[in-house]
């Protein structure tokens, strides 16, 4: 990204090593390297194409949703509803597929559902001035409730078609969802760093008042990031449902934690204005590697839940200590 490149240039004067350590993405990259080295020695199955591609597939949904969440957080917002949107979009998409048989229509319905919830989130924030934490906590519950109401709590089968292709197919052994994630990451990277609107997102998160006075449409920018985030959560829901060949109304429960963790691990500041798409992808990769480690080492899944929390606190803590020293 433009700013990243410039700051990198300025930092080069202080030594490349120092610059690397100073980048927030560096801590997550180091953790990934450490974990990869450890797992390579701990389990002979880890460093096989099959396992690694599996890690990639499992991480891709978190990464895709995290792309949207990253833009929201960079603009100084927060979207807690993404897990519920995954479930609601999956259910609605499956329901449309079953009712009409139109696969493309089902895809659009899923994305549209996500965009709609995103627009509601954005509207609650920008028009009614409800803190996004609270607004999306509300829609988290509402969206989940609607998914349960529609299905009566019973999963809808959802196999084949676009969802099946995105969620379960492979191209030359590479999962489609992983390819889709990488393509989207490149697109979002260009969008965030190279377009006017992308740059406005950073400005709005950095100092909303200054951004408004500089002529930026602050409300419009906030609406857009929430809609994009909702849409990507909708896409995540379709992929997950396609993978399981079933749209469970409980799908995506708790995903908001993984998604927000990936964004924060990737070096995005909750105070807005700072963050990068490649950092977020790294963050999602670390989360996926951690899950993989617990499976390979045969550790309790309950400990995995604890470890997720520890990793977030550690990553942000290290950064806080480092920044505290600089001040």
């Amino acid at each position, binding site marked *: 990204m433009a700013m990243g490149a410039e*700051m990198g240039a*300025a930092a080069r004067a202080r030594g490349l090593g120092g610059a690397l350590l100073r980048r927030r993405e560096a801590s997550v990259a180091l953790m990934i390297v450490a974990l990869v080295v450890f797992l390579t020695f701990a389990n002979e199955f880890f460093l096989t194409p099959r396992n690694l591609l599996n890690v990639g597939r499992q991480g891709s949904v978190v990464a895709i949703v995290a792309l949207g969440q990253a833009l929201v957080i960079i603009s100084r917002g927060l979207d807690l509803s993404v897990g519920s949107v995954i479930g609601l979009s999956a259910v609605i998409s499956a329901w449309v597929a079953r009712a009409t048989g139109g696969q493309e229509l089902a895809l659009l319905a899923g994305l549209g559902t996500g965009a709609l919830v995103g627009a509601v989130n954005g509207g609650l924030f920008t028009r009614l001035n409800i803190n996004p934490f609270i607004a999306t906590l509300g829609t988290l519950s509402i969206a989940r409730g609607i998914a349960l109401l529609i299905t009566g709590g019973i999963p809808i089968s959802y196999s084949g078609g676009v969802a099946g292709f995105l969620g379960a197919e492979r191209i030359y052994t590479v999962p489609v969802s992983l390819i889709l994630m990488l393509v989207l990451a490149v697109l979002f990277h260009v969008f965030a760093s190279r377009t006017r609107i992308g740059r406005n997102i950073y400005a709005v998160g*950095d100092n909303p008042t200054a*951004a408004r006075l*500089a002529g*930026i*449409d602050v409300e419009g920018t906030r609406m857009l990031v929430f809609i994009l985030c909702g849409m990507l959560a909708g896409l995540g829901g379709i992929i997950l449902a396609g993978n399981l060949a079933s749209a469970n109304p409980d799908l995506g429960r708790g995903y908001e934690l993984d998604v927000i963790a990936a964004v924060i691990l990737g070096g995005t500041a909750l105070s807005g204005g700072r963050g990068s798409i490649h950092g977020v992808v790294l963050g999602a990769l670390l989360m996926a590697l951690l899950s993989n480690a617990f499976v390979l080492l045969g550790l309790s899944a309950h400990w995995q839940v604890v470890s997720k929390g520890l990793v977030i606190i550690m990553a942000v803590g290290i950064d806080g200590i480092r920044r505290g020293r600089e001040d």
Partner: protein
Amino acid sequence: MTPIVETRRITRRFGDVTVLSGIDLAIPRGHIVGLLGENGAGKSTLMNILAGALAPSSGQILFDGAPVELGSVAAGRALGIRFVHQELSTAASLSVAENVFLGGYLAERGFVNRRRLNAGAREVLARVGLGHVDPRVPLGRLRSGEQQLVELGKAIAEEPRLLILDEPTSSLTPAESDRLFTLAHELAGRGVGIILITHRLEEALAHCDRVVVLRDGQLIVDRPARGLGKADLIVHMVGRPAIFTHEPPAAPPTGERLRVAGLCDGETLAGIDMSARGGEVVGLFGLVGAGRTEFLETLYGFRRARGGAVWIDGAPMPLGKVTEAARRGLFMLPEGRKTRGILPTHSVRGNISISCLAGITRAGLVDRQAERRLTDRMAGALNIRMAGIGQPITALSGGNQQKALFARALLAKPKVLLLDEPTHGVDVGAKAEIHGIIRDLAADGTAIVVASSELPEILAIADRCLVFAGGRVVAELGRDEMSEAAILRHAFALRADARQPDPPEVPAHV
């Protein structure tokens, strides 16, 4: 008799800047001392030192004749020094009574007795003329003047020995002001020392035993109020040579670029009419609270307008939306560089280019080469001193940050540029450079409206001056009528008039 408090050669420096030098001041028991001076004269710094919020760089404070080191506001309070600030520091959703006794609540062994609390508050409220106020209602329901009086009540409830009041009457009705001064005299009669910071000269002359004038960090006058006149005080306050000289515009102004008719906001502004032509620098002067900032922000759409119309180059402009104003050629550099100007985690380049990205977008993408070229050129033209344009903006000095914001404004290519305190907190060298930038911009045909509380600045750059008071334009002075004395006379003279009608009794939170 020993004075309550006495300062000996108090000096305070911030970095290389000396804001107070060698101040000797004594506040005897039962005296009301008026403290006057322009913005930036050092009044607040001196009072913060007396209250314990700031430490002096050198010098001594004597309390009851004994040297003290305050070190904190709490230490000052323990000695009986209370500073009532102009800005409210009250908790709006707590009740009036809770605010009066904030922190202690007249509690017994940790438990608050509501009846006792409210009764205590009623007593205090009666003393400050708020006997009609129910101490149980949330403070936020009160008018801002009433809230100010609650703040005063809070201070006198602690029976202070030295009371510092900063612009206490700025949001009070005349009746409330009278009540406040009655109370002040009553407290003085009981031996309390009072320091009154005010911009209202007539108040100082009418109610103070002594008047102290600060100018550029020095004590200029310390005399009994009796026998002093308003004219003397103005001369003392501004009596410094103009540092900057005015250069006449390069070319006669062109056609009208900005017209404002009857702009009001339902709060401060009472129908502002003005216009500005291309190549012209229009200065806005006014005392604190006169409405200059409100005017610029309402014009730019940052605050909501309640009436009026604006034309840019003859075309009407919708009010209330900054994006619209910016699209039609208006641009504003606000007061408060840190809070409203810079994007603190962005680079210098990112800060400069943020308002011109639309113009350099090709096929959906920002042309980074064009961005680099434009920002480099601007940084060079405005002489922004920095290690590199990729540096974080916060690494620059205030003056260079401000120049970067000017670069942002210039790249937005405005037809009309609004500037609010463009050289606030900027050193003298950068100030002169910024004045040069403003003149060059005007020479290119931009209409410039600049609000400043520094008279020498207005005199240096403005081709015409509008004087604000009480939310209206009270005088318009052409270049040859502009002088410090003339401008100040208008700014002060209409004070009494502007206060005639009582402010409407609306709750403060509306």
